[in-house]
């Protein structure tokens, strides 16, 4: 690792992408992530890369399709309403197995919603979003250091699985500043060649990147192949545990909610309440077994899920826990942040009920 640099989240995403070997960026302005395209528009020409402001998010994701299908590391970034527009393209990218990185700096919804941070696109990111049986790898960082590292990881996993990877972050992370040590720069010339890419049928048979299979059995087989790939992604599961074994109540949170939850654990400790945190880092694949094991091996009497939504990840938590302990919920939404005292208050109430 190199020197520590003070970076704003959005600019860290852009710089990390460049250092991870991305030379093709396509995007459309939307708050609160505009610093990313602005940064890219300055930096890409300096390093012989391509920055292109697309006419829409729909066009941006399809430009990513074309470039990703050409075998290069390509990315786009946007915020919630923009992701909705990209869903068609993401489904096609997943169907045609084209790697790319998509960053969603989430804001409140539905509809135009607002421009303040939220986590209400969890379902959309982790459960498909577009049509068809497909999944994207989804990463949920909590610090800017993690955010920068996940940009590298995202490009690596996208290439490894030939699949879109989504980084699910929010307006808080995009706008805040923290010191970052970027991972070592990726040497593009040393990346494995992508023999499946459409680079011209020279000395080989033609390559067709497509998602159309008119024969139902062929399409079923294609889906089974994709499913087998998604199953293999289980080995990429990442999570973090803090005071999981010895807590009375376990908080489960990701991203910005996990930052607030960590503070809640520290404040609760001063008040004599023992809380722990289980923090999923991969939101797809979700650490179902790991969470269940953590609860089975610890003494937590219940779980409190903390989100900046009205309850989305909680469904995965419930699937993981299979009813072995009660699962409660605390969430703020629409751009309102979770509050430490409210988390502790909810935790106290839950503990009264379960103990």
């Amino acid at each position: 690792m190199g020197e520590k640099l003070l970076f704003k989240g959005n600019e860290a995403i852009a710089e990390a992408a460049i250092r991870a070997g991305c030379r093709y960026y396509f995007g459309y302005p939307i708050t609160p992530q505009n610093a990313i395209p602005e940064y890219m528009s300055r930096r890409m020409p300096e390093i012989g890369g391509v920055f292109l402001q697309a006419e829409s998010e729909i066009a941006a994701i399809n430009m990513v399709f074309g470039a990703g299908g050409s075998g290069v590391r390509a990315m786009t970034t946007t915020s919630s309403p923009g992701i909705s527009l990209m869903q068609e393209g993401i489904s096609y990218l997943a169907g045609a197995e084209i790697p790319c990185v998509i960053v969603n700096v989430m804001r409140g919804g539905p509809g135009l919603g607002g421009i303040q941070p939220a986590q209400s696109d969890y379902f959309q990111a982790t459960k498909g979003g577009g049509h068809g049986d497909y999944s994207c790898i989804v990463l949920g960082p909590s610090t800017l250091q993690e955010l920068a590292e996940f940009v590298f990881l995202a490009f690596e996993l996208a290439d490894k699985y030939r699949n879109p990877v989504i980084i699910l972050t929010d307006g808080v992370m995009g706008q805040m500043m923290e010191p970052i040590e970027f991972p070592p720069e990726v040497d593009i010339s040393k990346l494995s060649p992508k023999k499946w890419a459409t680079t011209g049928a020279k000395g080989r048979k033609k390559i067709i990147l497509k998602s159309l299979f008119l024969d139902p059995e062929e399409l079923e087989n294609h889906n089974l192949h994709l499913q087998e790939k998604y199953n293999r992604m289980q080995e990429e599961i990442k999570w973090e545990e803090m005071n999981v074994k010895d807590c009375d109540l376990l908080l489960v949170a990701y991203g910005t909610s996990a930052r607030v939850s960590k503070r809640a654990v520290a404040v609760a400790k001063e008040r004599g309440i023992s809380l722990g945190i289980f923090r999923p880092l991969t939101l797809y694949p979700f650490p179902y077994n790991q969470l269940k094991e953590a609860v089975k091996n610890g003494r937590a009497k219940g779980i409190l899920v903390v989100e900046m939504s009205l309850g989305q990840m909680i469904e995965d938590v419930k699937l993981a826990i299979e009813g072995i302990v009660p699962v409660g919920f605390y969430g703020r939404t629409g751009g309102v942040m979770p509050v430490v005292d409210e988390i502790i208050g909810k935790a106290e109430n839950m503990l009264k009920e379960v103990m």
Partner: protein
Amino acid sequence: MEDIKKDKEIKTLEDVVTHYCPGCGHGTVHRLVADAIDRLGVREKTIGIAPIGCSVLIYNYLNVDFQEVPHGRAPAAATGIKRAQPDKVVFTYQGDGDLASIGTAEIVHAANRGENITVIFINNAVYGMTGGQMAPTTLLKQKTTTSPYGRNANIAGFPLRVCELLSSLDGVAYLERVSVSSPKNVMKAKRAIRHAFEVQLAKKGFSLVEVLSQCPMNWRMEPIDSVRWVDEVMSKTFPLKKFKDVEIS
């Protein structure tokens, strides 16, 4: 490895059975595109983008790399390919529903950026694959399955003239409307399509050839009547002409 050794002999047009309906214009236009690619010797560095519609299966007929992208988005994907591989030949093949309805934003902006790509635009005045519904290019009074009383301008607006629309854009290098209704028109179309690729090879910017193409099946006509309809009716709304052509030095 056998076919690699004989690569010089590989032709762009595949030796396969067509799935297109009798009398359809796609087969002719596929052949003209293949011929242009062969004559320019660019088969090994060409990447096509297939549309959504009957001609999504164009990749079964042309022996070049292909990407298949969402309905109307071909010019955006072509942009991504061309920016990543500026020395390759990139073309889209799009129908009127794809290019002139759902994909109007993408075609206008690719043209306006002067993207150095070639667009082959098939205008047959109906949605073919879905069964003959009204297209943006459907003529006034023309009956389709969704304009059963004939296209009424008060309800459905007017036939969209793509070449006329794009001709005001500074990024456009070459624009021509042709048809494949007769041997003479096919020869003109052949020259136009080849020229469009030449414009791209000369890095002059955006080139588009609109081909008025017959769809006897959905027009409920005999093939011979359908080509006559192109000449006598369709060409009145969509005049065959060259709209723009930059000098290739």
